[in-house]
């Protein structure tokens, strides 16, 4: 039992979301296990994107709980930024930082986190050494192992490694506006990877792409899946969902109406809405 608990990366209970008087999510329960690939399908406007965006509180949930790393993300007192560093997100519109080059896009968050931690230690040391002047028993200073430049260099190394992996090394120093849609989305995916997230959320990652570019993005996602990355994917690519996902969720009217393995959901749907939906998309 205990081992089972440790396996669970995200535990969502009774999640609800209201936009004004419009109830978008009506109580969603979901446990996401380590390494699991979950595909979320459903008709447009059913709340599947909203649900995904609630997981890392891009939309503040109205009620329920999301347990991640032993803390409830719905709780406003929890520092959501710390947890978001471990929950990657990939957007439909890529959202690469337009004013940063490709490599800077990938480095930005790791450098921010590293430098922030470094500055915290430095601040603490400054306090300690100040109060040490009044102390008999001097307190030891915290050890500083890196410099800002080192953090930057390491982040850049890692970013270039990631770019090499997706074959875009020569694009490292160009601005995102010069990339194709598929290249942008692949950079966006490795930007999420650069933080070593425990789970990556994909919000319709191929919906804004030209058809001939869908393949390269799906191939990258597939290789992440094969490496055991935990993934939650909102998608309209039924073929991809069937191939990659361990579990398919069908969301309609803000609720999970049916879930199961791809074979169960696609080949033997029970819910009439799901049957209707599949007949239209397959």
């Amino acid at each position, binding site marked *: 039992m205990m081992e089972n608990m440790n396996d669970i990366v995200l535990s969502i209970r009774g999640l609800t979301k209201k936009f004004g008087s419009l109830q978008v999510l009506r109580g969603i329960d979901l446990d996401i296990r380590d390494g699991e690939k979950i595909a979320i399908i459903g008709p447009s406007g059913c709340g599947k994107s909203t649900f995904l965006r609630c997981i890392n509180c891009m939309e503040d949930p109205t009620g329920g709980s999301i347990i991640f790393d032993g803390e409830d993300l719905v709780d406003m007192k929890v520092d959501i930024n710390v947890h978001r560093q471990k929950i990657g997100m990939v*957007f439909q519109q890529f959202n690469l*930082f337009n004013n940063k080059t490709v490599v800077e896009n990938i480095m930005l968050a790791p450098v921010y986190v590293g430098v922030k931690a470094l500055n915290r230690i430095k601040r603490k040391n400054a306090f300690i050494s100040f109060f040490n002047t009044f102390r008999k028993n001097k307190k030891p200073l915290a050890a500083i192992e890196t410099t800002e430049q080192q953090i930057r260099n390491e982040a850049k190394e890692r970013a270039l490694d990631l770019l090499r992996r997706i074959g875009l090394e020569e694009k490292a120093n160009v601005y995102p506006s*010069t990339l194709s849609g598929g290249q942008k989305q692949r950079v966006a995916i490795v930007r999420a990877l650069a*933080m070593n997230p425990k789970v990556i959320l994909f919000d319709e990652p191929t919906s804004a792409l030209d058809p001939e570019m869908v393949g390269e993005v799906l191939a990258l996602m597939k290789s992440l899946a094969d490496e055991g990355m935990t993934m939650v994917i909102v998608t309209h690519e039924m073929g991809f969902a069937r191939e990659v996902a361990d579990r398919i969720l069908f969301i309609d009217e803000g609720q999970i109406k049916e879930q199961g393995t791809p074979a169960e959901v696609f080949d033997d749907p029970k819910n009439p809405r799901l049957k209707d939906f599949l007949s239209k998309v397959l």
Partner: protein
Amino acid sequence: MNDISKMWQEFVTQFITRKGYVNVLDGLVVTIEIAVLGLLIGILIGTVIAIVRVMPKYKLLPRILDKICGCYVELFRGTPMVVQLLIGYWILLPMMGIQVNSGVPVAIIMFGLNSGAYVSEIMRGGINSVDSGQMEAGRAVGMPYSTTMLKIVVPQAVKNILPTLGNEFIVLIKETSIVSFIAVTDLYKSFKQLGDPTYEYTMPYLMLALTYLVMVLVISAGVKALEKWLKRSER
């Protein structure tokens, strides 16, 4: 034809022989001083107001500050600059019991307050025009609102803001011609004084127009160059 050459002769006499240019140069300095310092104050006030107005408004305090800033903007945009200048000089100054021997500081402050309202709208528009996905992407990798704003949104907004800010400077330069209402000798007044001895204003006013035009053309050329330099990261 004869008339024009006579007017020109008269103007040259006034401008050079009788050292009218000294006065005109002083007026030019005053005009530029009011416009530049006014814009600087305007940018300062505008930045503060724009920050308040784009901040997320979950809490009560930002909401109250937003309302106050909104009133400020409406007040300064809803009344003519001349009226603000007159109120500042003839009503607010005596009310505060301050005595000045020149209207220039008053003009600078009033133009600063006025352009602050416009600049805040320019900045707000610039920030709002940056795709909301940029903020989302910054927040999604775990950077706080302020960091994302500073590192991602504002640098992109500046590209939209700077050209418009240049236009605001042009408007400001031209609008300073009303400061003679509070007895400041600016470019307009100094040119007018060239014609005063003979009541012949044709040449002085034409030259006045030309001077403003040259200044504006120079500034817009500068703004265009700046714009081009800023856009280099796109494409």
